[in-house]
Each structure stands twice: as structure tokens, then as C-alpha cells.
């Protein structure tokens, strides 16, 4: 790991010294050994703050729309973070020439909440796209994860409704899932609108249901399944599962994947005349 760290620091130093890049966003040492924290390096002398380990969980692309608006910014990114960057470029939130991508090979990250215990992130166990989609430099190689993934939500339809009711009853509407997501960059979120009020800020299960189900629809074809939303949830709601199932249907129906540079329009912003027809009455 240390060799990769050195290379990251070297690339960051070169970028900052080139004069073109005024900021490199990466991960730094956290306040405890099992956490890292986003760092914003502006001086070449500070590149030693950058680290790389299995606790580099944050999807740093979330900081790009604000920081890379009018200047070129470097970012240290895992393959999933890069898919977010691709989405942001496709949606014209940032320009490709304003991002210098230091891409990393990845073997999955670990989520830890107590000292000494960490588990591989569930989303990482499903990740097939471990090659960086776009990059300026690549450091290291991706390693597949061998562990099988457990089924998280119930298979049976009848059990699912109760399952989600129980899960959403925990929701405290902290909006951490939304704030951490690079794809949630709307200036005014539907959940904060009062005219019309789509969902009240009451911490009840049905309002939480409305918020989360709408958010998943808004992420349709845009969520790159990094799993950060689940990681940050203080009450353990597996919000990424809904987005994951949505992404699987989008791939099956429309052969479309979020974060793929070849896509030219959002999945819901295009259609084919031979699209699968969801109408239910055959005549």
C-alpha cells in the first residue's frame, strides 16, 4: 500500500507544481485508525497528507461540482468514484478539462464502526467495473473480491412491504444519504419544496417511504452504486438496495449503465421504438 501512497503523493505534487491545478482532493488520515477523511491539498508541500488504504470510503466526486466549476482540480479516485465523475461530466455539472483524475486500482473498501472490526463493503462484492472508465494517470491494479454476497432484502414480495416499512420507520430524515451522493446535486431538492409539498419532513415511515422511493427514481440510470448512502445512514437502512435493483432492470431492459462514458443521453432522456412495453393489457 505504501508504494501506491507514494505514487499518489508524487502525482499530486507534480499536478500542483505544474501550475495548472490549484487543488487536489484525496483522502487523509482520519482521527482514528479505521477512518479516513477527505483532504483538500492546495500546496505541493502538503501532499504527504494523502493516504490510501481500505478505509478510503468516501466518494470524493461529491466535492467536484463546487470546487471544479471555474478551475482545474485534481482528484484521487477509485473506479466507482470515477463513474460518478463520468456522470457529472455527462450531466454538464463539470467539464472534463477541469478534472485531473488520479485513478486507483481497487480491491474493495471496508466499513468499520468500532475499532478492530471491519467488513468488506457489500456493494464492493458486486462490483464488476473495476477498471477506471476515464483517467489521467492510473496507479495500481484492481483486485476482484472473492466473497459471495448475502441477499439483503427478502425474496418474497409479501415480506418486502413489511421489511421496508420496518426499515423506513427508523429513518430520521437526516438526509445524509442525499448529501453524500455525488448524483444529488440539485440546488433545491424535491424533499425541501413546500409548494407543492411532496413529502413532509415528519420522521414517519410513510413520509420516509415517499422520500426514499422518489430519490431512487431520481437516481434511475444515474446511480453508480458506490454504496456510500448505506454507509452513512446512522440507522442502518439499506437504501442502496433499491438503487441496485433499479440499475439491474435498466441494464436488462435498455442495456444502459450509469457512469459509462459511451452513453450520450440519460436513460430516461431517450427511448427506442422497440423498448419493452410495460402496458398490461394485450389486445
Amino acid at each position, binding site marked *: 500500500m505504501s508504494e501506491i501512497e507514494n505514487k499518489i503523493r508524487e502525482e499530486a505534487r507534480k499536478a500542483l507544481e505544474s501550475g495548472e491545478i490549484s487543488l487536489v482532493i484525496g483522502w487523509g488520515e*482520519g482521527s482514528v485508525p479505521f477512518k479516513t477523511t477527505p483532504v*483538500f491539498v492546495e500546496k505541493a508541500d502538503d501532499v504527504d497528507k494523502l493516504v490510501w488504504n481500505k478505509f478510503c470510503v468516501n466518494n470524493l466526486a461529491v466535492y467536484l461540482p463546487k470546487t471544479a466549476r471555474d478551475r482545474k482540480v485534481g482528484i484521487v479516485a477509485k473506479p466507482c468514484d470515477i463513474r460518478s465523475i463520468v456522470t457529472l461530466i455527462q450531466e454538464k455539472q463539470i467539464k472534463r478539462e477541469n478534472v485531473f483524475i488520479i485513478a486507483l486500482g481497487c480491491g474493495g473498501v471496508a466499513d468499520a464502526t468500532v475499532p478492530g472490526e471491519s467488513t468488506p463493503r457489500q456493494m464492493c462484492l458486486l462490483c464488476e467495473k473495476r477498471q477506471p472508465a476515464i483517467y489521467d494517470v492510473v496507479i495500481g491494479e484492481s483486485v476482484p473480491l472473492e466473497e459471495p454476497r448475502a441477499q439483503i432484502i427478502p425474496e418474497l414480495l409479501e415480506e418486502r412491504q413489511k421489511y421496508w416499512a420496518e426499515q423506513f420507520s427508523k429513518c430520521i*430524515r437526516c438526509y445524509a444519504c442525499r*448529501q453524500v451522493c455525488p448524483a444529488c446535486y440539485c440546488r433545491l431538492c424535491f424533499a425541501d419544496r413546500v409548494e407543492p409539498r411532496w413529502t413532509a419532513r415528519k*420522521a414517519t415511515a410513510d413520509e420516509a417511504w415517499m422520500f426514499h422511493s422518489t430519490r431512487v427514481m431520481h437516481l434511475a440510470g444515474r446511480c453508480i452504486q458506490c454504496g456510500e448512502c448505506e454507509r452513512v445512514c446512522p*440507522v*442502518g437502512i439499506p437504501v442502496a438496495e433499491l438503487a441496485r435493483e433499479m440499475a439491474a432492470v435498466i441494464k436488462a431492459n435498455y442495456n444502459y449503465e450509469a457512469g459509462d462514458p459511451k452513453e450520450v443521453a440519460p436513460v430516461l432522456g431517450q427511448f427506442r421504438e422497440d423498448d419493452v412495453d410495460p402496458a398490461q393489457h394485450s389486445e
Partner: protein
Amino acid sequence: MSDKILSKSKIQDYLKALAEKFTVVAPMPRRDAPAEFVEINSGDEPILDGSQPMMPPKDYLLPRYETLLKVDRGPEGVKIESTIPEDKPRVMLGVWLPDAQAIQVLDRVFLDKNFVDPYYAARRQNTLIAAVIPKEPRWSWFCSSVDDVENWRKNVDAIFYDLGDRYFVESESEKGQALVDVSAMSEAGDEDNAEKDKVWRRFAEQDILPFARKALYEQLEWDNPIWAEIAQKCLGCGICSYMCPSCSCFDIRDDMHDICIERYRCRDTCQFEDFTLMGAGHNPRPTQLPRSRQRLLHKFKYQHEQFGVVGCTGCGRCVELCPVNVDIRDVLSRTCVEEV
């Protein structure tokens, strides 16, 4: 005040005895989520040893969503229904000591002599608080760094010390006697006392951080460069304030159901962009920097100036849960460096 021993095998007997006099509120476990303070039923097995993450007790005293009144228009005319909860004797068990101390902060806000919040008062004024000191303090606690925890004892009615197979229970107030005068308990001996002292010391001497308490109130300044650093990475979610046992900001909103209006209270946080957004569109805290600064100055400086009580009680939830590892212990260590 008296000291007793409660064997863990006698917990159900104890809870049954308490239930005859009180509504018992204790943390109940949930799937994949922190335990939650609820009114327990006979046979329930609450988490009384403080060993697991839990939602703060403010979620019971000041619920996340609470109806304040209902207005109905029926055939007989307009009817207004108040929904003030029942004021009945209650006891809260299994409360972390930092959370119990945080209730003092809430009391300053909601039981101010010039205005008593009737909803909070109904749940609070006849409620005994029994704190718990777990065998090992939680890794993220920093209580002794923010206050002299010896002074916290008098603010609870009883303290349960986890000695492994039993609790050492100490009443701290007259009313707290009712929590130890229970037949399920036995007398405490010298050995018990010695172990209890060890448990207390482990808690009280945990990791005193290199910042001086007095400096908190006097050295946190408006133009400290650290605010910009925090604001750069802070995502502006509500985790720190919603999970904090002493944060209590709320919003009051109206909802219409058919022709019935419900006025309710829900949580709000100074970390959301629309917290200070005004009707005309002006927002005095339009970016994350003033919002981050506000929260920390309020918690560590203004609340002390206003109420004479420390706003933060070191429960560590924000340290554990912040998605970007804004660690308040580090922030304070870097800003409050000298004894003033």
C-alpha cells in the same frame, strides 16, 4: 443515599416491580440500528448495560415527530384538540451518563421559568433518570474532557454501574430511593464497592484530551481558520445534530388531512441550508462555513454563556457517525490550546 446490588438474573423481577409504580422507558434493540428508548412492556428485554449504540434519550422526551394540536371541522363546528401527552410517573433506565447530563441542557431550554413547554414538561417533570456506567467506556466518549463528571452525579436519580454479572446501583436523589428500595435487590458489600469505584474511574479518567475546559468557552472565536477547513469537507447533513443528545432545534409545520389540520413539531438542524432561509429569500447563513461555525460556537460557547451548562457532554455520537470524520475532539484540541 443507599447502595444496592441487582443481579442480572433478577432484571425481569426488577422491571416488574418498577412497572407497578412507573411507566418504564428503556432502550430496546432494533435490527441493524441503534437501540431506541420506548415504553417497555412486561417481558421485554431492554439493553440496560449501556453496551450498545443507542438513539439519544431526547428522542423520547422530545420526539422526532409530535402532534401539537389538531383542528377539525365537523358537523358541530370547529373543534380544537390538544395532544399534550399524559403526565404520569416515568423512569428512564439504561441512560448513558453523558446523555443524562445532556437532559440538563434540554431542561434549560424547555423548562425555562418564563416559558415551560407543556409537551416536554408532561414527559419530563415526573420522570426519574437512572444512568448507567458500562464496564468499559465507549471508545468515542470524551466526557471528562468537556466537564467535571463528578458534578454530573447529582443531576440523575440513580446510577447503575455494570460489574459484569450484576449492577451496583446507587441512588443519587431522594426520589431515586424508589429505584433501590426494591426487593429484587440485595445489599452491596465492600468488594462490590471497590469494583464500582474501578468502573467509575475507567469512565472518569478516559482519555483527557489536550484541551482545557475553560478555554472552550473563551477561546473559540468567530474568525478561527478551522471553520473553513471543516466547511470544506462537511456535507451539511443532519447526523450530528439529530443524533446529539442535547441538540433540540425543531420546526413547527401544519399539515392538512381532508378538512382537518394537524400542527406538528419535527426536527430541524442549523446544518441544513434552509434553516435560516427567510420568506423574502434572504439567508444569513448561505454557505457551510457560517453553519459549521454556528453549531460549534453554540454548543461549546453560547450555551454555556446562556445557561451555565456545557452544551456538549462528550457522548461521541458525532465522532462515530460523521460521514466525513469531522472529529470534534480534534477540532477542540486544535483550537483551545491553553488554560486561560
